[in-house]
Structures are given as structure tokens and as C-alpha cells.
């Protein structure tokens, strides 16, 4: 019996690899853009693939643009207060819409994969945070009235996002977002009323408090990360 010159199994394997490359559909617009920016394809899949993510992505861009344009318009203290108060809640909204069984139809199938739930939710939260920062930050920097305080909402945004994630270890994502957002509005309104409209909530003390929240909520998320890996608390 003569031995084939070329191993048929190898030919078959190579042929399957070639056809897989040729048949693979082109990625969507968002994903293609991320790949051009150098983000690995295995990560762009996680960011752009699901509708839950796309919804939160588009929603964040849309609301961020409205908030940013609204604040940049009249150029008064009230508009700036609105920008600083509303902008940090956008990532919270994004997180609530990008995670959990009510937002993500593949939630249960995803849980059973080796990718930790906390990693997935962190990637999604970071995505919404980055988009919000890019849109609102750019619009705030364009206006001379908002420029000095353009970065004052960043630490509160991170604090609220982490507080939402920490609350998600006991409540559903949407309830967590509602609790954190309402609490934030109450605190900021009270401080604003007491400080006679001086944007005190976004001053040095406000930033220090936000930093403390970041550290504490980050610790809670890290310690209770197991909760993002299981189904029971979300069903």
C-alpha cells in the first residue's frame, strides 16, 4: 500500500481553516472601529456583540450628548449643576441596562462560561464610562463657562458606578441603579441647598467623599464578586 504524499487529515484541517476565514462575516461598525483602535477581536466581541450592550452604548452616547449640549448652552450656574449632577448617573444607567437576565438574553449561557461575571460587568461598565467621558468631557471643554469644572464629575461617576456594582451584589441591576441614582440626587440637592448653590458637592470635600466611596465600593465588589457568577440573586 502506498503512503499518500500529503496527509489527507492535514489537507482537510487546512481547508477547514481557510474556509472558516473566508466565510467569517465582517464585524459590525462599532466592532470594526474598536478593532481599528487596536482592541483585540476577542474583547471587541464582548463589548459590541450583544444588543444589551449596544443599547447601553447608544443610550450613553445619546444622553451624554444631550446633557453636554444642555450644559454648554445657557452657560449659567444652574446648567453646570445639571451637568455635574446628571453626568455621573449615565454610567449607572448603562450598567443597569447591560447586565442581568432582564437586559441580556444570553445571561444564563454566559454565566456557565469560564469568563468571570465580574470581568464581563467591568468591561461593560468601563465601556459606558469611557463613552460618557469622551462625549461629555469634549462638550464641557468646548464651553469656557463649564471648562473649569469639566472634570469635576469624573470621580463621582466612578464612585456611583462602583456603588451600583456593590449594590448589585444584593439587589437586581435595575433596582441597584435606581437606589444609587435617587440617593445621589438627594445628597447633591441637600448639599447644594445648604451651600447656597456653590456646587459644594463637587468641590474638594465632595471629591474626597467620592474617593472614599470608590475605595469602599470597590472593596465590596471585590469581596463579593462571587455574586456576579451565580444566577439565584437575579432571578
Amino acid at each position, binding site marked *: 500500500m502506498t503512503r499518500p504524499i500529503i496527509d489527507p487529515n492535514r489537507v482537510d484541517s487546512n481547508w477547514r481553516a481557510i474556509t*472558516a476565514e473566508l466565510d467569517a462575516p465582517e464585524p459590525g461598525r462599532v466592532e470594526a472601529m474598536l478593532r481599528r483602535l487596536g482592541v483585540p477581536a*476577542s474583547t471587541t466581541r464582548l463589548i459590541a*456583540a*450583544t444588543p444589551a450592550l449596544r443599547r447601553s452604548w447608544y443610550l450613553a452616547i445619546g444622553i451624554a450628548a444631550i446633557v453636554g449640549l444642555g450644559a454648554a448652552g445657557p452657560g449659567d450656574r444652574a446648567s453646570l449643576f445639571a451637568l455635574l449632577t446628571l453626568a455621573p448617573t449615565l454610567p449607572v444607567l448603562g450598567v443597569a441596562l447591560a447586565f442581568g437576565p432582564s437586559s441580556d438574553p444570553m445571561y*444564563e449561557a454566559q454565566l*456557565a*462560561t469560564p469568563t468571570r461575571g465580574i470581568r464581563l460587568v467591568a468591561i461593560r461598565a468601563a465601556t459606558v464610562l469611557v463613552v460618557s467621558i469622551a462625549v461629555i468631557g469634549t462638550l464641557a471643554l468646548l464651553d469656557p463657562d463649564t471648562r473649569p469644572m469639566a472634570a469635576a464629575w469624573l470621580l463621582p461617576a466612578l464612585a456611583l458606578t462602583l456603588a451600583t456594582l456593590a449594590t448589585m451584589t444584593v439587589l437586581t441591576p435595575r433596582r441597584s441603579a435606581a437606589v444609587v441614582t435617587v440617593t445621589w440626587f438627594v445628597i447633591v440637592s441637600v448639599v447644594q441647598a445648604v451651600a447656597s448653590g456653590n456646587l459644594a458637592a463637587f468641590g474638594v470635600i465632595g471629591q474626597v467623599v467620592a474617593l472614599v466611596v470608590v475605595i469602599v465600593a470597590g472593596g465590596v465588589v471585590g469581596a463579593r464578586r462571587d455574586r456576579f457568577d*451565580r444566577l*439565584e440573586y437575579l432571578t
Partner: protein
Amino acid sequence: MSAAHVCAEGLGVTLRGAVVLREVDMHIGAGLTAILGPNGAGKTTLLRCVATVLAHDDGELTVDGLDPRRESERIEIRRRLGYLPQEVGLLEGSRVFDVVEYLAALKGFRDDRRRRLAVFDVLDRVGLRDRAETPVDRLSSGMRRRLGLAQALLGDPALIVLDEPAAGLDPEERIRLREILTERRHSSTIVMSTHLTDEASVCDRIVVLVDGAVRFTGAPAELAAHASGRAWVQAAAPSPDVRASWQQADGSHRCLGSPVADADLVPPTLEDGYLLLSGARTA
């Protein structure tokens, strides 16, 4: 990757104050195992525990000796796992390829070429390769189920957990499903839930779950034998004492339970054994 071994001892789950699983003992190795039971028996909860997405409250559960309550061991189990939940949601706007590639990324296929190859491999197996670019909202319910099965087969997992894989499939698709599972049964441990006895009949072993407790574990023939001497056919309408009965196409009544005198006993089927075990009363 060799088949996984699933071991449950005294497994118990309580959800919102209700006991859903109680004292479940189960040892499952290579081959095809059906979890058979009526609606609400706890099949989905049991499979969710095996698939590590739901934590159990009592007893022990291990997969290849790994305990899903420990994070690192749970991740290791998930590396060996393929899971089809009862409901795989629609990803409106996504294409068939995108859905499977997304889960392949989550399953750790980092290399682009390997990932695409793996995706087309499973799409080939479930007969959806030609639909790779079709939006999932244009798929029939049977095709969606096959898509769910495709992601569960990614990477040739040692443990495949399928919750009602035959739901919504037409006869031709069911045969294809059987072929796929038969092909994998020697190299994987496949656990699937069903309430269809004809699906269970092709399995290596059957676990009957009723009210959260295991009532039977064994081969399909053993389940059928459970009704041995307790299945008969009669022309007259059965008395209310029979455990279960139904009228057949020829007008006669098939009855289960303690046979009446001079009953015309018939060879028992798997369905007879299951109905007697599950305590169904269909008369």
C-alpha cells in the same frame, strides 16, 4: 478531553422559601443521561446546579471532584462545560455567527483563527453553517434551539448539560439532535432534561425526578420493567381504582396499576414505568 464525572449526594436547593430539590443522589459518567420528570419536578434547577450557575444549599456536588462552591474550581468546571439553558434568549439584530462567536470568546477562544474555526465546526454539526450570516430573529424556533445547541458544543466539552434540547424541534430535527448526541456520548458526559419518554428511551440511563426527589435511576429497560405485570389492556372502561389509563386508537383501554383478575397483561413500555413512578393519575 475525557468524559466528566458528576457526583451529587444529598443535594438540596431551596428557592424563595420553597424546597425545589431534596436529598438528590446521582452519579453520572460518560454517556447520555436523561433527567425525566413532570413539569415543576426540579429538572431545570438540578441542571442549573450541575452547570454551576446555581448554588446548592445542602449536600455535596462535584464534577470530576471539583466543588463549584469554590471560585477557582467552579471556573475549572466551566472550562469543561457546555450548557444549553432552557431559554436561550434571542439576540435581535445579531447574526448566527456573531452569537456563537461571542460565546466562543467567553469560553476562552482568544486566537481569532481558532475561534472562527471552532464556530464553523459547531455550526456545521448542527446544520446552520449556511445560515451563518442570517439574523437570529429570522430563524425558526427549531433553528434557534439548534443554535443554542451549537454554542453548548463549542470546544468539545467533557460535560454537556442540555435543558429540554428537543423542545420546539420537528421530527427531522429531533433525529439530527439524536445523531449529534450519539456521536458525542462516548467522549462526553451528556445530561439532558426532558419530559418526553421517547427522547429518554435512547439514553444510557434515566433519572426520574418527582417533586424534587429522585425516584429512579437506571437503564431505560429497567424503568420499563418497573411496570412489569402492572400494565394491561381491556375493552371496558377502567374502574377508578387503576393508577392510570387512556384510550388507545383501537378503542381499547391501556391501564396501569394493580391488575384486575383475568387482565390481559401486556409488555410494559418505558412510559408505563415512568407513569407509575411519577404517580400520575390519568384515568
